[in-house]
């Protein structure tokens, strides 16, 4: 299985490198094509892989800590809350380096609001959580749209940006995101055994020896940090974090030691392919925001989950 995943990841990487407005044959490249491949497509494909991995890792953590198979950065309202912070930061002329910080702040605010609304006596109601997430999404989107009117000049590309896509790609951004992904992955992986206990009901988890409140707070922070930084650079790319943990669970079981790794790799794979599709689907070199592709995939998957897990969702 691990070999299969590594093989698929390599294949997707090569496929994504070759795909685009024109198909590049890696065995027969002209000088210009080599420049396109190395200067444009390589950082773009790597960036999509890192962002996909970040979103998937956060989804794996959200689903476990919120005990909800429908949870990810999009359905919890975290991504749109973080986007709101990023948009306000950009509109108010905040230095670029501080934009992700504001996104983290508002993202955490959105997540905690949804969490507080859906938890009662230590038990999270999964349906209330999704409804609260929808409300946070709507409110955040409304404020973002209002910002577009109010700060028209500085936010002229906001609609395009909110769909989520890789519009500005450079090596420094890629390096920062990769470093953050590595840092969060290592921290979460070190706590993988403890994270497994969060799959139990709160009373069991607490009496099995885990400090649930502290572990949940750390998980929320790391997952939201990943989302905030991803959203600050690419806008809202929904559903990657919803789909991949389920795929990972089907392939490698529910143990978080495996799920964190497999979700991360599958997220990289999924977004590389989705971005390759978004770059190739419109003839003539035009590009679709990748958020549209993932929203289509994720929307169908969400409906599938709602149908198959309906009873469990309603009865908590």
């Amino acid at each position: 299985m691990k070999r299969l995943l590594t093989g698929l990841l390599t294949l997707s990487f090569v496929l994504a490198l070759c795909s685009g407005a024109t198909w590049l044959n890696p065995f027969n490249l002209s000088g210009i094509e080599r420049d396109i491949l190395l200067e444009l497509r390589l950082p773009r494909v790597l960036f999509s892989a890192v962002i996909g991995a970040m979103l998937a890792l956060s989804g794996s953590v959200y689903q476990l800590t919120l005990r909800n198979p429908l949870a990810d950065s999009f359905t919890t309202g975290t991504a749109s809350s973080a986007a709101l912070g990023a948009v306000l930061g950009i509109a108010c002329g905040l230095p670029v380096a501080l934009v992700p910080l504001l996104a983290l702040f508002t993202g955490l605010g959105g997540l905690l609001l949804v969490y507080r609304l859906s938890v009662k006596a230590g038990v999270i109601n999964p349906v209330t959580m999704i409804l609260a997430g929808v409300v946070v999404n709507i409110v955040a989107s409304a404020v973002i749209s209002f910002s577009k009117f109010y700060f028209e000049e500085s936010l002229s590309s906001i609609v395009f940006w909110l769909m989520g896509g890789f519009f500005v790609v450079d090596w420094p951004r890629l390096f920062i995101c990769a470093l953050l992904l590595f840092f969060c992955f290592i921290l979460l992986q070190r706590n993988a055994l403890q994270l497994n206990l969060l799959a139990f009901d709160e009373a069991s988890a607490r009496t099995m020896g885990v400090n649930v409140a502290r572990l949940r707070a750390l998980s929320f922070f790391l997952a939201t940090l990943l989302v905030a930084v991803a959203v600050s650079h690419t806008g809202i790319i929904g559903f990657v974090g919803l789909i991949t943990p389920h795929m990972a669970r089907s392939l490698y079981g529910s143990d978080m030691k495996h799920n964190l790794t497999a979700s991360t790799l599958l997220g990289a794979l999924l977004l590389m392919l989705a971005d390759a599709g978004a770059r190739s689907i419109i003839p003539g070199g035009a590009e679709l925001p990748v958020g549209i592709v993932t929203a289509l995939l994720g929307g169908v998957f969400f409906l599938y989950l709602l149908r198959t897990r309906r009873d469990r969702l309603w009865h908590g």
Partner: protein
Amino acid sequence: MAEITIRDLHFKRGDFQLQLAAVKVAAGEKIAILGENGSGKSTLLQLLTGLLASRNAISYAGQRLEHLSMLQRARCFSLLPQQAEVIFPFSVFEVILLGRFARMQGQSPAEADQQATRQLVQQLELDDLATRNFNQLSGGEQRRVMLARVLNQQARILFLDEPNASLDVRHSLEIFDYLRRQQHTLIAPVHDINLAAQFFQRFWLFKQGHLLADVSRSDLTCELLSETFNVKVSTVADSFLFSR
């Protein structure tokens, strides 16, 4: 020194109040908590395990509950809640193995943890279920697996909230017989009074949040049970018979 000491325990939630003046539990004692629904049995377990704050009223081997870390607590006592559950498809073996978390030293279970879990699975005759998805088991099977998870924690004290809920007669008898033979201190709310009378030595009778009586088996009389449950109680061939 007593294994568990409770002194001046007061708890209030809405209209409900739970009070316990002074109780001591010796190591190895098996105590059944009897009482009507809502009499405070589960609340007492939540207080004893620190899930609800008890304000320094509870000590374990002389150490106040509040001074024990989560890991120390898990090594001291384990809890089977009334509604124990696991989200996502974990296997039965994984669920039971995770019970040893407080004993695990590294980032993942050691061979000794796996070995001890395999032994327990055999002892409790769960071999056939070991590889199955926990969430696809029947209610009774899930209860047995959760009980195994609690035992695998290897704590000195077991708090089991209705351990035989959803279990058939044979499995109820087997589990209580198994628990009686262990050296653990056991405190368990039990609804089947005849089963409790058969397997436990000491009985706490609760009524509206108060400890009505703390008695041994020989002192568990029809009058006491009648007062606890507001029903008529008689005995037939050493069993209690209840009628309205």
